[in-house]
């Protein structure tokens, strides 16, 4: 993974010192809250429902054992002993104080971490494929460019006061595991004519109030021009994005107002006028960054392992874990392991300080001291020897981290919702917990198969409800929490925004409504091989509506049946 040199160290220390000075001027009264707010947001510090929340970047999701231990230390010393892994490869601490925050930033700087631009109307933490560098389907490692973008965007003077926040995601694999089409800019490494790699550039994706799938801005951009081209995109947005209306200020609104062709024309004109030579990343810098992302020295290990096979044959739980939570590594004899922070009943994405320490130890012992965080709020151990899987699994069981449901209905994305968030209209976590408990039976979850269920507590959509195969949106209906269900969203290469299925449900009715949706799918799918998303795409909302709202169809349950159980039941 990337290691800081003296220059990077100096940068994060300097940034932390700058924030310490800003805090002291806020406390002395030199800065009003209106003047201070953008400064603290650019350092990831929010004022939330209960108090200050600090969002720490885990750039492109890569985190080391020593960094995990520092996060655990921060959780214990400055928070209530836990943190929350977010949907953008960040971790949030919910109970920090303003006066402690400079010390926390210093502590982060010691382990090559920061909270730079994890909020604010600027370029946010660049996200990427959590399997970067190890996935079997990778064209080229995106982390080299993600790191280059991290540096380029950090305190870039022109782009700290954009019309609105700006999110970039990058993938280098055949399968999009970073939801790049739901980002302001999505970058995909592709092979061009002659075999050289470059970027397909997508623009204007996003969730929130007005969800859009990103559109193709440029089919092939030479690698070396990435920074100058992005400067041109950013400048067109900075100058022409709307600043009169918060809800229409994202680049997706500009792109759709101009049309992709006109937007592309303006970007091209700007790109022609700027000094590419000066702005593109020098080859020497690419060469400096690249070796940081070489594979660790992985000893040759057997590609098959009899003991593991025998354990799978006699231990159904272990077998399920291997099937759901591990994936092929580039190197035979190794597996990529997902630690799902999704034990039914837990808060999705939360980890206690003890669990962070345990993950640090486990990563050190089994995965070259490296872990990844994913936007679906799980942890990935990228380099686990096949022969170590049983030992690793037993250790995860002991630490309460062996939830074998990655990619299944109980692997739910949920934002913090009204339990923590100032913007939320409704709670998301208890709904996620109730659904996870309802579908707790692992055989049933397996029968349902691959399914992305996402919950947001408000229309800002941090819980990615628009891109869930099943999406749940919390709304405030005359002072009570209600939940609107969408179907058919997809975050991947076939990205799509879900369709609202009908009127919203009271909180206590949501698990039954999900039950009804799943029953519809299981009863009517053409085979066990037809996924929920494929089924939805074949039949649309009709059969689900009939079942949920008890229309004219005789076998549909009525609303009253849907009201029987309560949340947490």
């Amino acid at each position, binding site marked *: 993974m990337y290691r800081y*040199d003296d*220059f990077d160290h*100096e*940068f994060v220390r*300097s*940034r932390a010192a*700058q924030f310490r*000075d*800003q805090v002291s*001027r806020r406390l002395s*009264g*030199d*800065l009003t809250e209106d*003047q201070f707010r*953008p*400064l603290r947001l650019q350092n990831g510090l929010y004022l939330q429902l209960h108090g200050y929340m600090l969002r720490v970047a885990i750039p492109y999701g890569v985190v080391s054992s020593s960094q995990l231990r520092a996060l655990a230390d921060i959780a214990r010393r400055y928070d209530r002993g836990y943190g929350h892994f977010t949907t953008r490869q960040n971790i949030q601490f919910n109970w920090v104080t303003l006066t402690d925050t400079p010390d926390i930033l210093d502590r982060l700087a010691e382990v090559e971490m920061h909270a730079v631009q994890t909020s604010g*109307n600027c370029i946010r933490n660049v996200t990427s494929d959590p399997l970067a560098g190890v996935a079997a389907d990778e064209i080229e490692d995106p982390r080299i460019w993600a790191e280059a973008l991290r*540096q*380029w965007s*950090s*305190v*870039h*003077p*022109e*782009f*700290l*006061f*954009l*019309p609105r926040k700006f999110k970039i995601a990058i993938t280098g694999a055949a399968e999009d595991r970073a939801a790049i089409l739901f980002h302001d800019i999505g970058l995909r490494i592709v092979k061009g004519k002659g075999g050289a790699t470059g970027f397909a550039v997508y623009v204007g994706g996003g969730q929130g109030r007005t969800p859009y799938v990103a559109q193709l801005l440029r089919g092939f951009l030479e690698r070396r021009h990435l920074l100058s081209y992005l400067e041109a995109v950013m*400048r067109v947005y*900075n*100058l022409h994005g709307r*600043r009169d209306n918060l809800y229409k200020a994202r680049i997706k609104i500009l792109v759709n107002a101009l049309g992709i062709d006109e937007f592309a024309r303006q970007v091209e004109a700007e790109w022609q*006028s*700027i*000094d*590419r*030579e*000066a702005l593109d*990343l*020098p*080859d*020497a*810098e690419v*060469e*400096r960054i690249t070796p940081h992302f070489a594979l660790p020295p992985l000893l040759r290990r057997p590609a098959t392992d009899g003991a593991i096979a025998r354990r799978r044959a006699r231990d159904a739980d272990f077998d399920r874990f291997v099937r759901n939570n591990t994936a092929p590594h580039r190197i035979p004899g190794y597996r990529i392991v997902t630690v799902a922070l999704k034990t039914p009943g837990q808060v999705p994405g939360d980890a206690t300080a003890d669990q962070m320490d345990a993950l640090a130890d486990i990563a050190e012992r089994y995965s070259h001291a490296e872990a990844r965080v994913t936007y679906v709020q799980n942890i990935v151990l990228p380099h686990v020897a096949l022969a170590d899987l049983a030992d690793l699994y037993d250790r995860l069981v002991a630490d309460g981290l062996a939830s074998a449901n990655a990619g299944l209905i109980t692997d739910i994305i949920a934002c913090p919702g009204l339990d923590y968030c100032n913007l939320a209209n409704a709670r998301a976590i208890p709904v996620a917990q109730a659904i996870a408990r309802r579908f707790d039976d692992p055989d049933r979850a397996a029968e349902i198969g691959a399914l992305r269920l996402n919950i947001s507590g408000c229309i800002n959509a941090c819980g990615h409800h628009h891109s869930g195969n099943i999406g749940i949106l919390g709304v405030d209906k005359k002072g009570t929490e209600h939940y609107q269900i969408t179907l058919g969203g997809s975050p991947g290469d076939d990205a799509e925004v879900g369709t609202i299925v009908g009127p919203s449900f009271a909180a206590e009715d949501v698990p039954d409504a999900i039950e009804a949706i799943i029953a519809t799918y299981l009863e009517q799918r053409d085979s066990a091989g037809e996924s929920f998303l494929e089924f939805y795409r074949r039949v649309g909302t009709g059969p689900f509506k009939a079942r949920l709202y008890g229309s004219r169809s005789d076998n549909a349950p009525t609303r009253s049946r849907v009201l029987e159980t309560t949340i947490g039941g």
Partner: protein
Amino acid sequence: MTLLFRTGTIAGARPRSLDAGSQTNASRAVLPLAEWLARAEDGSGAHETTGVVIDADTKPADLATLSDAPLIVVRLAKFTDGRAYSIARIMRETHGYTGELRVTGDVLLDQIALLQRAGFDSFEIAHLPTIDALARGHLPSIASCYQDLPHMPPAIRPTLRRAARSATANHSNERRP
């Protein structure tokens, strides 16, 4: 009370002087864009001795006509209006503007170093705590920078430096004047 804070020439890496308006440009006549453009067209050459004041929403096509002005003043209605930064870079880098580029309005201490890196070299400041801080010599900034912008060479990693770039470049410089 307002303070005119100047950072010297556009190549100056650090602020050099603090004055209350004794420089030539401090008292120079400044006209709104439309009037300045009218002078530019009347053939008198008067626009070359007269400054121009513009807002952050000035059209890029109009920016292209301002290079003859000895002083361009950009009005910042709110410190969060980031368009001023793009205007500065367009003037310096795209149009090769070498005159004084001043920002006025909601100019606060924490943005000065950023505005400077974008290309501004003078700052008209009304915010009292900012004036006090500058008087104490306190100008917050980041010691090291990842962007090698042309008009203010900061501390930059050797492999990021434009000097290193032009030394290795083997094709013609596409840079505009």
